[in-house]
């Protein structure tokens, strides 16, 4: 496809560099403001709730489900935040929970696939694709990806511990 055709497909004029920088900065700060409005209250709430009987109890309730993916029960709150809101809300919940690097990676993977389901489901529907079906797909894919990562991660750890055990390599 030629440049002209592509430009025709996007149908937007090319602004000069200062205009682009301005657009970028203002879009960036607008997004940041939106994020802070959600993440600061959530972060504070989770920090204050941590260690209270309420969070412990709810954590225990979700522990069996979260355990499948190698996550603690409390991570369920991060998933609720990710599904309904966005990843920034989820991160505000994750950080005070002090998860391991694997658990953070696992959250990043699963939530990366399934997040902001309400808004994005709507967007996907307007393209003519079936929004509801795709949203369901995302949840299933997120779980598949989670199981896959858990398996790969333990394989990797086993392999690297064997490598370490080899004489002359460590």
């Amino acid at each position, binding site marked *: *496809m030629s*440049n002209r055709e*592509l*430009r025709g*497909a*996007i*149908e937007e004029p*090319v602004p000069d*560099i200062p205009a*682009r*920088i301005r*657009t*970028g*900065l203002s*879009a*960036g*700060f607008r*997004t*940041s403001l939106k*994020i*802070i409005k959600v*993440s*600061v209250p959530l*972060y*504070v709430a989770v*920090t*204050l709730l941590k260690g209270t009987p309420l969070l412990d109890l709810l954590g225990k309730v979700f522990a069996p489900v979260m355990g499948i993916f190698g996550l603690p029960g409390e991570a369920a709150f991060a998933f609720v935040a990710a599904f309904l809101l966005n*990843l*920034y809300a989820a*991160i*505000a919940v*994750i*950080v*005070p929970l002090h*998860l391991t*690097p694997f658990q*953070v*990676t696992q959250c*990043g*993977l699963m939530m*990366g*696939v399934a997040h*902001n389901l309400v808004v*994005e489901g709507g*967007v*996907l529907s*307007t*393209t*003519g*694709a*079936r929004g509801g079906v*795709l949203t369901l*797909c*995302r949840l299933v*894919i997120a779980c598949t*990806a989670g199981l*896959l*990562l858990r398996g*790969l*991660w333990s394989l990797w750890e086993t392999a690297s511990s064997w490598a370490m055990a080899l004489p002359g390599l460590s």
Partner: protein
Amino acid sequence: MDALLPALVGALKLSAKLILIIVPLVTLFEVLRYLPVFRRAGNVVEPMMRGVGLTRDAAIPLFTGIFLGIAYGAGIIIRVAQQKGLPARELFLMGLFLATCHSVIEDILIFVVIGGNGPAILGVRLGLAVFLTGLMARVWKPA
């Protein structure tokens, strides 16, 4: 009240980290997105797209979604999808690919900042997206 102050400080630190990623990233993208390199990228990836059942008509919405995300790239995705009159099969395949693998730069960076493993997240998402879309492209034959 003793617990509130550290919580607030932690929340502000996290916000600062996120802003330090988002603002430069969005600005850089705005500056670079009009480069001809990006516009020509469609030719390079066409053979790969054929592997997952997509044609070059889907290139712009697909890559907008992969790099920008579904909500942010919505304008371009919707407009191009309608203009090109993408068939239902291609819309579904594109949707499936994007459901698994979208907004990869921003989404992965923010998890790397809080201690996640970026290559692991990207690898699994991309691998799974190609596998699932490729599989469905073979299940749902073009009319």
